[in-house]
């Protein structure tokens, strides 16, 4: 008794008034304890498994409050424990209470205990009563609960699986989803689906699998209770009722026994095909009951019969047909319709155009359809409704077809095209099916004038829509007479009323051509209202480029109109059309206005004819017009491009179609490509390209050259003038007077240049004698072989083709025979057939002007001591070297070589003209003097005996030596 203990504890801590209260309470408790509630007896458990409801009943005496505990028997876990109120059934004297389980009651055994409660007083617990589950050992099969359950969308649903004894549970699956599982007992497992979704016709499976792959399962159907709507009843036979309704919501329960069942006024309805129920009599009030596993729904309707008449479809349609109308007849299935006030629709279809005719009448059974066209096939069908209390149109009858009779055709729509030469075309439009009224057999065209009786008639076959006329061939029609053409169409019913058109060349051309408006695939033409004009109008159009026998098109416009719109299907894109508005087209057509334009502009189909030419340093690009038929739009201007490699660079945009010339300036010499593209509102054409090559400006070049030449000439003149003015100085500086050589004997023969022709096989070698000082100057002669290979070297042609000997200063550098001054001259000496020897200095027998005898013997100025040769020409020996002593000394080493070259040139050192002994030798030199080898020397070859003379002339030759050195030093 914890409460008691709790109250005793209070007594100890409270004050006196509280103590009194506690004592009063204890007294009351003792009084109750004396009346303990009776223990519930004969507890009985029963279950409604479909709703998982457990009904518990017991004998509970007078108590109305009980404590109830429900346990899962096997695991002894509580699933319910609460104090409940239960009333006693007066008849049976038993208390009863219902409990709904979350799990199916088959899942596991449940045990129940009850005790009575009277305030705080409770009885003992009743004996435990058990509701056996299907997981008892005696039920040793794999089971799943509940089976085939139908639940509403959004519900929560618990399933349990009872495994076989000794088997191991694996999983529970909902579709392909593995579910969370709760173990209820040793063999029972449960899972709960929350907020279930609608299932398909065959429901959804919850599968229980064991480890040994055996399985069982349950099927669950999730849907909605029925929800019918639009429930109405009507009559067709004016006796019975036919009720219809719809399902406002898919119940998702359409399979097997789960589908919704319907009844009207308690009569079951077969709703396999449609939601309809037939009742043999008109009740006036109807109740529809819809019911399925999840619930039921009812709807009511009430109406008088006359208000709910939906006539049956007329049957047995027939017709009486004329050319322009037909009478359609039908019959009614029920005689009661003969007195019914009906409203009927007759739908006639002709060439896919539908017309609805409405008729009214009591018991209507025939109607006359007017507005039909002759020789046309029609299909009609009929339906009716009650005229006064219209409820719904009845069903359409079966279709019925007939063809109207033929009639004469309508007058044709005729127009003309006249050329300037009084020839032309009379044209008419093909007759549509609504104008021909029967098969056309031909046309009759008559030309006539009002003043003459004579007519020219022409019969034309069908499918002819124009005829060529030549008024000049018809003399009777006259030149200035008013001529008309009349066209009549013939069919099997006869000739149509005639259509006439005056044949006249209309040559007025308005000054200004407007452009038509083209929007929304239609072409709009507007014009001013002419109050005086009471005739109709005619709008004619044709290709602008056409001039003779043009295939004109036209449309007639009612008098008083100020605009017309024409379908764009009549026109081709990119074609320029002339639109002409005529008044009184049938009597005396007058041109009111004219438009010109395109329904759709395209880019030009042809490019401009292009030409490019240069003019001075400019390039002038000119081009011509594109032919009208190729423009395909109004040319708005031209774009001029220059080709920049593979790309085009815009040079100019000429926004006028009249500008067809463009000048490009500032171009340098080179090749250029120019492209000109015309453009319309649709864009540019592909363009024409022309190229041009700009040549250099030759006149300017010549002028430049002349200017340069003039400048040079002036400079030369100035230099010449200066030189002339300073000639004395120049002469003194560069060409001092050279003393006349004084020679014994006749020297006059040698006044000209010395022509020395070396022997073809002569070789000149430079030999530096070891016993001589290496630094001494030596006479250098270039070997022939090297000279030969130097032929290609540039040769200073200004130099005389002479063999030149230079007394080169032998320095540390090696001798370079390739120097032009030596090699080239040597080469030329070999090649030339005639050689001049120029004496730019006087060389005495003992010394030269260049290499002055230097007693002190400056090593740099020493001439080459020895010159060897294979034959032919022998170089001049230095005068000093060529002294008698030296010659004697040096002749020995050369004796062998001289012997070897017994034929050939003798050294000039032995040239002593004055010596009679040498005369022979001198004469023997004569051939070599005439040889083609040229020797150019800056030294004069003088006899040895003139040594004194040389000394005398030394001062005068100093200037020449200086000049010679200057020339040498100028060489590279």
């Amino acid at each position, binding site marked *: 008794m914890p409460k008691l203990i709790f109250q005793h504890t209070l007594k100890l801590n409270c004050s006196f008034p509280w103590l009194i209260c506690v004592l009063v309470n204890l007294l009351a408790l003792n009084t109750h304890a004396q009346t303990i509630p009776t223990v519930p007896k004969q507890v009985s458990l029963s279950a409604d498994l479909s709703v998982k409801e457990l009904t518990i009943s017991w004998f509970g005496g007078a108590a109305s409050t009980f404590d109830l505990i429900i346990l899962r028997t096997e695991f002894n876990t509580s699933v319910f424990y609460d104090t409940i109120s239960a009333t006693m059934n007066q008849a049976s004297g038993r208390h009863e209470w219902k409990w709904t389980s979350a799990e199916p009651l088959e899942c596991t055994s449940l045990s129940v205990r009850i005790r009575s409660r009277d305030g705080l007083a409770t009885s003992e617990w009743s004996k435990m009563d058990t509701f056996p589950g299907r997981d008892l050992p005696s039920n040793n099969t794999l089971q799943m609960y509940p089976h085939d359950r139908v639940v509403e969308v959004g519900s929560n649903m618990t399933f349990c699986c009872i495994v076989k004894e000794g088997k191991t549970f694996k999983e529970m699956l909902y579709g392909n989803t593995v579910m969370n599982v709760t173990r209820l007992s040793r063999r029972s497992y449960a899972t709960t689906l929350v907020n279930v979704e609608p299932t398909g016709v*065959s429901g959804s499976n919850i*599968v229980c699998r064991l480890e040994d792959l055996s399985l069982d399962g349950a099927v669950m159907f999730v849907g909605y209770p029925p929800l019918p709507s639009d429930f109405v009843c009507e009559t067709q036979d004016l006796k019975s009722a036919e009720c219809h309704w719809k399902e406002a919501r898919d119940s998702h329960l359409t399979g097997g*026994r789960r*589908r919704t069942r319907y009844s009207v006024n308690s009569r079951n309805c077969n709703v396999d095909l449609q939601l309809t129920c037939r009742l043999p009599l008109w009740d006036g009030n109807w109740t529809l009951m819809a019911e399925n596993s999840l619930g039921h729904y009812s709807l009511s309707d009430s109406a008088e019969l006359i208000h709910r008449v939906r006539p049956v479809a007329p049957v047995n349609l027939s017709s009486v047909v004329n050319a322009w109308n037909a009478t359609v007849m039908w019959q009614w299935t029920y005689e009661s319709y003969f007195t019914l006030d009906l409203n009927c629709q007759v739908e006639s279809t002709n060439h896919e155009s539908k017309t609805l005719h409405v008729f009214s009448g009591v018991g209507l059974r025939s109607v006359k359809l007017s507005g039909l066209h002759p020789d046309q096939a029609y299909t009609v069908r009929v339906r009716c409704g009650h005229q006064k209390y219209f409820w719904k149109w009845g069903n359409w009858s079966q279709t019925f077809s007939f063809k109207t009779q033929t009639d004469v055709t309508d007058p044709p729509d005729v127009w003309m095209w006249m050329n300037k030469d009084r020839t032309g075309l009379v044209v008419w439009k093909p007759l549509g099916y609504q104008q021909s009224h029967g098969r056309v057999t031909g046309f009759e065209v008559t030309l006539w004038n009002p003043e003459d009786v004579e007519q020219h008639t022409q019969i034309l076959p069908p499918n002819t829509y124009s005829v060529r006329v030549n008024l000049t061939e018809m003399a009777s029609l006259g030149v200035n007479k008013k001529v008309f053409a009349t066209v009549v169409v013939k069919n099997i019913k006869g000739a149509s009323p005639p259509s006439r058109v005056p044949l006249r060349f209309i040559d007025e051309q308005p000054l200004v051509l407007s452009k038509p408006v083209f929007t929304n695939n239609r072409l709009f033409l507007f014009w001013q209202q002419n109050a005086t004009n009471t005739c109709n109008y005619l709008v004619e159009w044709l290709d602008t480029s056409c001039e003779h026998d043009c295939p004109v098109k036209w449309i007639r416009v009612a008098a008083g109109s100020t605009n017309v719109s024409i379908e764009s299907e009549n026109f081709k894109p990119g074609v320029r059309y002339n639109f002409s508005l005529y008044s009184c087209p049938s009597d005396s057509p007058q041109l009111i206005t004219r438009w010109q334009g395109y329904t759709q502009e395209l880019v030009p189909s042809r490019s401009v004819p292009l030409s490019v030419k240069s003019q001075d340093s400019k390039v002038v690009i000119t081009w011509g017009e594109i032919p009208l038929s190729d423009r395909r739009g109004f040319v708005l201007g031209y774009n001029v491009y220059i080709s920049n490699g593979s790309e085009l660079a815009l040079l100019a945009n000429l926004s006028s179609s009249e500008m067809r010339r463009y000048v490009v300036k500032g171009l340098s010499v080179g090749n250029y490509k120019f492209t000109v593209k015309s453009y319309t509102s649709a864009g540019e054409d592909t363009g024409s390209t022309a190229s041009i090559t700009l040549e250099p400006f030759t006149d300017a070049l010549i002028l430049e050259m002349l200017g340069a030449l003039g400048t040079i000439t002036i400079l030369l003149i100035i230099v010449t003038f200066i030189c002339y003015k300073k000639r004395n100085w120049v002469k003194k500086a560069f060409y001092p007077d050279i003393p006349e050589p004084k020679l014994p004997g006749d020297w006059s023969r040698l006044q000209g240049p010395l022509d020395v022709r070396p022997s073809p096989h002569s070789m000149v070698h430079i030999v530096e004698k070891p016993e001589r000082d290496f630094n001494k100057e030596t006479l250098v002669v270039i070997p022939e072989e090297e000279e030969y290979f130097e032929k290609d070297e540039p040769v200073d042609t200004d130099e005389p083709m002479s063999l030149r000997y230079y007394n080169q200063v032998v320095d540390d550098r090696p001798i370079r025979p390739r120097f032009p001054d030596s090699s080239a001259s040597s080469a030329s000496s070999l090649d030339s057939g005639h050689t001049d020897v120029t004496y730019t200095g006087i060389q005495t027998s003992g010394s030269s002007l260049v290499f002055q005898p230097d007693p002190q013997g400056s090593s740099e100025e020493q001439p080459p001591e020895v010159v060897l040769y294979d034959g032919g020409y022998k170089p001049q020996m230095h005068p000093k070297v060529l002294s008698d002593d030296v010659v004697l000394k040096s002749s020995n080493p050369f004796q062998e070589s001289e012997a070897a070259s017994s034929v050939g040139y003798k050294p000039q050192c032995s040239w002593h003209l004055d010596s009679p002994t040498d005369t022979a030798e001198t004469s023997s030199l004569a051939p070599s003097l005439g040889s083609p080898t040229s020797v150019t020397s800056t030294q004069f070859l003088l006899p040895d005996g003139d040594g004194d003379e040389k000394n005398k002339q030394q001062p005068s030759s100093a200037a020449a030596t200086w000049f010679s050195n200057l020339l040498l030093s100028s060489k590279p």
Partner: protein
Amino acid sequence: MADRRTRSMKNSNLSRTAVNRASMIALQLQGESSKLLELYRQKESFPADATDGRLVLVPPSSSQLDTRDKLWRLHSALLQTQSLLERAITKEEEELGGGIKGEYENQRKTVKGRLSFLLLTTGNLLKAVDGAASLTPSLEGLELDGPATLFQLKLWLLQVFSEVHHWSKAAVTTLQELLTNAADERSSTTRVRSTRSARR
């Protein structure tokens, strides 16, 4: 020997073309029943290993069986399968049918038609082998005791479709065997004749 000769004569009545044709039909049925099985498994979210056990009862297959017995066994199995399939379709329509017919229903109809055609063909083969013997294989054991639950009905349907697939495969195998045997017999006959003519 007499028996063999008789059988051989009977077997010669078995047109190779007819057997080949039946084999082709069986092959078609095999593919179609496989697809039906797959569609049904998808529709019901059944695991691939959700079925076991045989519904059709026939004597066990043996290499000792002659052509007639093989054909009889096959034809009997197919008859039982057809009976099962028709009942399965009816039961399914009753308990689970309704609504719009989809691919599964069309495939089911195709398989039913193809199975009937195969049965007709195998019946003709059996007649060719065994004369005008009446073919009324026993349908005992095929009675459905009425599945206790819709889930069991669905499992039974799965079993029936599996049986159709199984026996279509068996039909292909059996008919191919018959074709092979016929070819062997022809070659051996040719060999015997050539040996005899050589001896002469």
